[in-house]
């Protein structure tokens, strides 16, 4: 009797210890993740004197929005923000549509060459995008669809390279999105489909009425990934957009470059450059944090239903 009680006490201690270790680890890891963000917020609200003063680290003596104003102006924020938002929304919406369709086709129809096609989808993922970059660049510069067009057109500097690759599910890491959507649609019960078939619904009616509503949370996750990657993208944008660089990532880079130059001539202190830079970075990340805040419950609650698995 006594030993049983002692044993129960021991397991209780063990449980407490396990949860203590768990919390300690979670807090430590959370700190590492949040630190860069946390450090930017107070520093972006400081004035130059506070930034130079080593005693002031977390709490500015006086909160100012001047850095945000300066960054706003230097980045030409209203214009670059709008351009970036327009491009990103276009790209992520089109990619969501095309990858959902392709994923559904691969998941639910056993046509000839299905597994070969799925293999090709995965193949597009493992090839470094840099490898096809220059041939692609030249193809878009002299775009003629294998000589079908009479005179090649130059698509660079427009949104067309983004639109065309997004519509066809060959944009940045679209193989990953197709893979996610295929997994989701594969996991749906065949009875649903059969019932629709019996009711006389064609493949498209089945898709839109029966299958699509069940794939909502996975689609939101695909949308989020696509949005985030496009928002952050600088590699493909440099390639496709050529000279017109009125987009947020370039604007953010511009701040750094301007300050780098003026720093070399000792026109500004590095502390000042840093606080304005931090304000600019926060303004760049803000939309991502907002969209993550809105969509995070789909990550957190329904992971098991998203189908992101092997």
């Amino acid at each position: 009797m006594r030993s049983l009680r002692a044993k129960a006490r021991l397991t209780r201690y063990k449980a407490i210890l396990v949860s203590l270790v768990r919390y300690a680890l979670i807090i430590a890891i959370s700190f590492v993740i949040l630190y860069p963000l946390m450090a930017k917020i107070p520093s972006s609200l400081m004035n130059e004197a506070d930034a130079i003063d080593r005693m002031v680290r977390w709490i500015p003596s006086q909160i100012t929005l001047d850095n945000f104003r300066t960054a706003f102006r230097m980045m030409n924020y209203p214009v670059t923000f709008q351009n970036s938002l327009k491009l990103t929304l276009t790209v992520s919406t089109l990619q969501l549509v095309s990858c959902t369709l392709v994923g559904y086709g691969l998941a639910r129809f056993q046509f000839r060459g299905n597994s070969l096609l799925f293999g090709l989808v995965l193949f597009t993922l493992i090839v470094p995008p840099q490898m096809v970059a220059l041939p692609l660049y030249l193809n878009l510069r002299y775009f003629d669809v294998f000589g079908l067009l009479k005179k090649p057109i130059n698509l660079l500097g427009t949104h067309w390279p983004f639109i065309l690759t997004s519509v066809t599910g060959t944009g940045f890491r679209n193989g990953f999105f197709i893979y996610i959507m295929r997994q989701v649609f594969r996991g749906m019960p065949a009875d649903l489909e059969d019932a629709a078939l019996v009711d006389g619904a064609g493949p498209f009616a089945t898709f839109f009425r029966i299958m699509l509503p069940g794939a909502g949370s996975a689609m939101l996750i695909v949308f989020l990934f696509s949005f985030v990657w496009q928002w952050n993208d600088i590699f493909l944008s440099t390639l496709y957009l050529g000279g017109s660089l009125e987009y947020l990532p370039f604007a953010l880079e511009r701040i750094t470059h301007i300050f780098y130059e003026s720093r070399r001539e000792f026109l500004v202190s590095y502390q000042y450059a840093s606080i304005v830079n931090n304000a600019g970075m926060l303004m760049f990340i803000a939309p991502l944090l907002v969209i993550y805040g809105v969509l995070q419950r789909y990550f957190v609650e329904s992971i098991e239903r998203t189908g992101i698995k092997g």
Partner: protein
Amino acid sequence: MGTKGRKSRLTLRQKRNSAGYVFVLPFIIGFALFFLWPFAQSIIFSLSELEITREGYDLHFVGFTNYYRALFVNANFLPTFLGQIQSMLISVPSILIFSFFAALLLNGEFKGRWLARVIFFLPVVMGAGIVLQLEKFDYMYDILRAGGFGRGAGIGGADLKLLLYELKLPVVLIEVIVTALEGIPDIIRKSGIQILVFLSGLQSIPAYLYEACEMEGATGWEKFWLITFPLMTPMIITNVVYSIVDSFTAVDNELVRFIHKTAFGGMGYGVGVAMSWMYFAAIGSMLAVVMAIFGRRTYYLD
């Protein structure tokens, strides 16, 4: 099911299945135009010298000269290449181990689980892209890390190094410790999606398996190796592939930046593409090895 019914069902299925082509058609077109064709061209380019002319470009076939020049003429390619492969061999397993561990941490029932998950997946949003790039290569950031905002935060290397020197540890050991510790934030920030994949995998393991195991008197250790780990092998493969794919566009991928510089400024595009091809070959063979190791031992629960 009768033969008759089966036959008519089959044709119906077949008819239905051909509708699948309509759904995948966009990808087939895009694959041909924006992937396969440039991919094939990149082979040709790597064997040629490219000259930009007013009407377009000219190619002169030069055989394997570009490969030769990349490997033996360019003094920096081989070290950068090997360095990148080496750092991948370290970082991919580290990411996998960490994200598996983090997924186990987040999987149980505990208070604040929602908040912990929100934070752990935050790198999915923040980890990629320009902000990290600017921080990485920003001279200001380096100065700030050495002294300024970053100080006293526990992850600045300078303080720790001093402390270790005080302890009179061998210099080599100090370097290893500091490098490893400084690498931790990177590993954590690169693990967002991998944690997501592992966590969804963990949640798809049915509870009855564990219950059956407990009835047989298995310890937690045995349960992990007999149930959790084997059922997670598909996710391990997914995550290896994803981590490698992710490293192509990572801001700290020295090799990709080197290739970019070679192609657009240095020895020319042909040599740059030849370098890309060698990189791709190395990655392809690494993936093949991973598949050979884990693919055969993969367990699916259907």
